[in-house]
Structure formats: C-alpha cells, structure tokens
C-alpha cells in the first residue's frame, strides 16, 4: 500500500501487472506488424543488444579458427591442388558465357525486348547466430549504409537463399526461402511453367502450391526465379523438385522441392542489386551491355562471383512486388 498525498494506491497485483503488460504486448505487436511503426525503436534496440549477438557468435568463430589452425599441411595442399585444377575450367566456361551473353543480347535485340544486363553483387559476412525456433533467418553484418534495402535478393554460389527483410544500422536480417513467411515466384526451367515456392519452416524444404494435376512438372525439375513481381531477378536457381504427390481428393498437387542454395551453411552470402531493367518495348544496343560488375574483398576470393542475368522480358502488368506473403493466398 502506497500513500501519495492522501490517496491510497495499492501496489499492483501479479494479475494486474500481467494484464497490463499483455495489453502492451498486443499493442506493440499490432503497431509492429500492421503499420511497421516501430522500425526506429527496433533499430535502436538492435544496436543496443548487438553485444549479446557478438558474444553468441564467438564460439563458432573460435571453432572455425581452431579448425583452420589445426588443418594439416596435406589437406591444405590437396585443396590448393583442387582449386588449381578447377580454376582453368571455370575460366574456360566463362569465355563461353561471354560469347553466349553477346549472342543472347543480339537475339533479344532482334526480338525487341530489353537486353542482357548484369547484376551487381557484393560478398557479405554473416553473424553466426541462430534464428528463432520455427523461423529461418540470417543476420548479415551489413546495414543501410552499405546500400542494402528491404526485399533485396540474397544468394550464394549455388542459388537463391532468401531476401533481406529488415535493414538495420550495423546489421540486417534476411529471411530464407524456407521460412514459413516467405514465398518466391519461380518457373520450371524446362518449360517455363510458372509457380510459387513457399517456405515451410523445415530446414531444407519448400513447397510448390497451387499446381493442378495437369501441370507439366516432374521429379528432378530445376526451378529458377521467374522474375515476376520484380523482387528477384530472372534466372537464378531456386530449388529442385524432390517429390510430387497427386492425391485425387485434393484440388492441387502436393509438391516438395529442395533448395539448391546451401541454406544451413553459416559463411558468407552474396547480396545482389538487380540491374535496372528497362521497361518492355525499350530496346538497348549491344554496346550498352556491361560486364558483370563485381565487388569483392581481396581476402574473400574463394568463390566464383560471376553473375549475369537477363533483364526481365515484358512483365505481366498485374504482378505486384514480391515480398514476404502474409497468409497464403493464390
């Protein structure tokens, strides 16, 4: 019991406190989810609690460092040898890519669609922290000052990993394509059949929904980003079809696919800035074709970072921006 200028104020009971804080939580959630009004507060809090994340990342860093330290001479030699043999093959393949690029641009010019343009890519390090249970996220050690933006595609050397969901001051959060709140427009590489790949929350699974039994899709088909919606550029590998179940009682096929990107590897990722594609019906001259503009730190040359993707062909006018879906509606 408190006495305040003649008034008697009861100290709040456990239940009162709980009810008040529960209401406050609900208010916060509504503000955060519905209107995104808490961006600044969240950014500030993230900076404040960054030391906790750095502390949590130490064991893995130290572990990796110890592994490097104790690696035997022979294994290093073997790796150097492997890289030495791999490199000429990759370079040779690259020569062909350039020729194909030029040819593709020429053909596109003949067709009157926009030309091949290169995407810009930057290698970004990850902070080794794990995501919330039931979700699939990454923390990237780059923020708004590096030019990151929400919805930016995140890839690795194998394919698309996800997209940036939140840009902070010093770090950003990316959600993976396996996150239950994520969906990405894809097409079957073999025949251009359009579909959407939804995250499930399982580590290495995406599900392809809303395809009927008549759809031409087979086990082992490669799914690439379709570029519809404009969030992800066209042509990056996303997943491989693993299993197709056709239940006659269901309206749609139940299709499970495995992402081709190495989603569980906590190393670096590549952030790409999709090239500004000209809108349909604008033709570019072959002279406008730029070589892939790749920035990378000298210390991180382990990965081949050659990225080219053609700008989208004329887009359907109805496609909205690709972003994490809320609620799954076809």
């Amino acid at each position: 019991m408190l006495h305040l200028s003649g008034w008697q104020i009861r100290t709040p009971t456990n239940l009162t406190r709980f009810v008040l804080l529960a209401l406050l939580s609900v208010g916060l959630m509504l503000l955060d989810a519905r209107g995104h009004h808490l961006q600044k507060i969240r950014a500030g809090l993230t900076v404040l609690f960054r030391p906790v994340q750095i502390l949590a990342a130490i064991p893995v860093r130290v572990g990796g460092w110890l592994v490097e330290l104790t690696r035997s001479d022979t294994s290093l030699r073997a790796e150097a040898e492997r890289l030495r043999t791999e490199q000429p093959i990759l370079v040779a393949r690259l020569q062909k890519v350039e020729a194909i690029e030029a040819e593709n641009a020429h053909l596109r010019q003949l067709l009157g669609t926009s030309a091949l343009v290169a995407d810009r890519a930057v290698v970004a390090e990850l902070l080794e922290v794990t995501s919330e249970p039931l979700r699939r996220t990454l923390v990237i050690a780059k923020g708004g000052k590096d030019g990151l933006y929400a919805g930016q595609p995140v890839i690795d050397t194998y394919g698309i990993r996800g997209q940036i969901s939140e840009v902070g001051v010093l770090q950003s959060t990316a959600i993976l394509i396996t996150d239950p709140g994520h969906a990405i427009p894809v097409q079957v590489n073999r025949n251009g059949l359009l579909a959407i790949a939804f995250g499930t929350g399982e580590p290495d699974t995406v599900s392809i929904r809303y395809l009927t039994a008549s759809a031409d899709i087979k086990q082992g088909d490669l799914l690439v980003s379709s570029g519809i919606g404009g969030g992800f550029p066209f042509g990056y590998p996303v997943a491989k079809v693993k299993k197709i179940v056709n239940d006659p009682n269901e309206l749609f096929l139940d299709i499970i696919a495995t992402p081709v990107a190495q989603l569980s590897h906590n190393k670096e990722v590549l952030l790409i800035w999709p090239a500004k594609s000209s809108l349909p019906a604008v033709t570019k001259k072959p002279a406008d074709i730029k070589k892939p503009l790749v920035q990378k730190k000298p210390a991180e040359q382990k990965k081949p970072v050659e990225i080219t993707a053609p700008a989208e062909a004329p887009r359907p006018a109805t496609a909205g921006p690709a972003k994490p879906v809320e609620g799954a509606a076809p």
Partner: protein
Amino acid sequence: MKFGHNTRARLTIAGSFLVALILSILPWPVWTEQFRPDWVALVLIYWCMALPTRVGVGTAWSVGLILDVLYGSMLGENALAKSLIAFMAVHFHLQLRMFPRWQQAMVVLLLVAANNLLVLWIKHLAGQAPATWGYLTPSIVSMLLWPWLFVILRDIRRHGNVN
C-alpha cells in the same frame, strides 16, 4: 569491486538471464534446432519460483522483449509469452516449491508448451505459421533439462547469497 548485497543479487540474476539469452541464439547444427530447449523460460521459471518478489511479470516482459529484438520477431511476441509463464510461475510459486523435482518438471513442460502454443498462435495470425510439429519438442527437452538446471541455479543462488 565491492557491491552491496542488493546489487550483487541483481547482477547474478541479470547474468543468468544473459547466459540464457546467449544460449538461445547460439548456433547449433540445423538438425538439433527442434530440440533446442527454451533456456530463457527455464531460468525465468526458476527465479519466479525461488524469488517471486524480485523476478516476476515485469522482468519476464523485458527479457522477452530483448529476445524479440535478438530474434527479429514481432516486438511483443515473446514478451507476451514469457509474461504468461512468469505470471503462472509466480502465482503457483508456493506449490511449485513443495513439489518433488519430477513434478516440477511436468509443470515446466506445461508452461513451456503454453509459451510455444501462444507464440505459434501469434505467428499463425501474422501468417508465418510453420507446417511442422517441431514446436512441441522444445517443451519436452526443457522438461528433461529442468532437474539439472534447477540444481545449478540453486547452487548459484545459495553460493551468491541471492535472496
């Protein structure tokens, strides 16, 4: 450094929560992820039971909010779930203290499961509900861990003379 008794008690409690928070975001191989116990909930239940005057709904809410920031989930999501745990643990702290260890573990199972179901429900409303059963395993792992964690935290409390 010399701290007063009160400050030392607070630092000990804050330290245990910090360790729990770090353990919550510490990376493990992906397949172990669904077996990750809810460290924050375990530490919270212990302190609510042992020192309900010091640690209660308010502490739970703050720690939950920090967890939301670290996880990048909706602000208030874990805060609400952890306040629920703290409310129940404080409400029943006298009974909990009298329970044998295995019975406490059963209560821990129920509390963590309630926490997880609440989080799942909120995620479902936000359209991010996963299509897995993985959300129930952490409560079982938390239950199995409780007896050991109880002993560790009790020793810390007695050794540090936290009361």
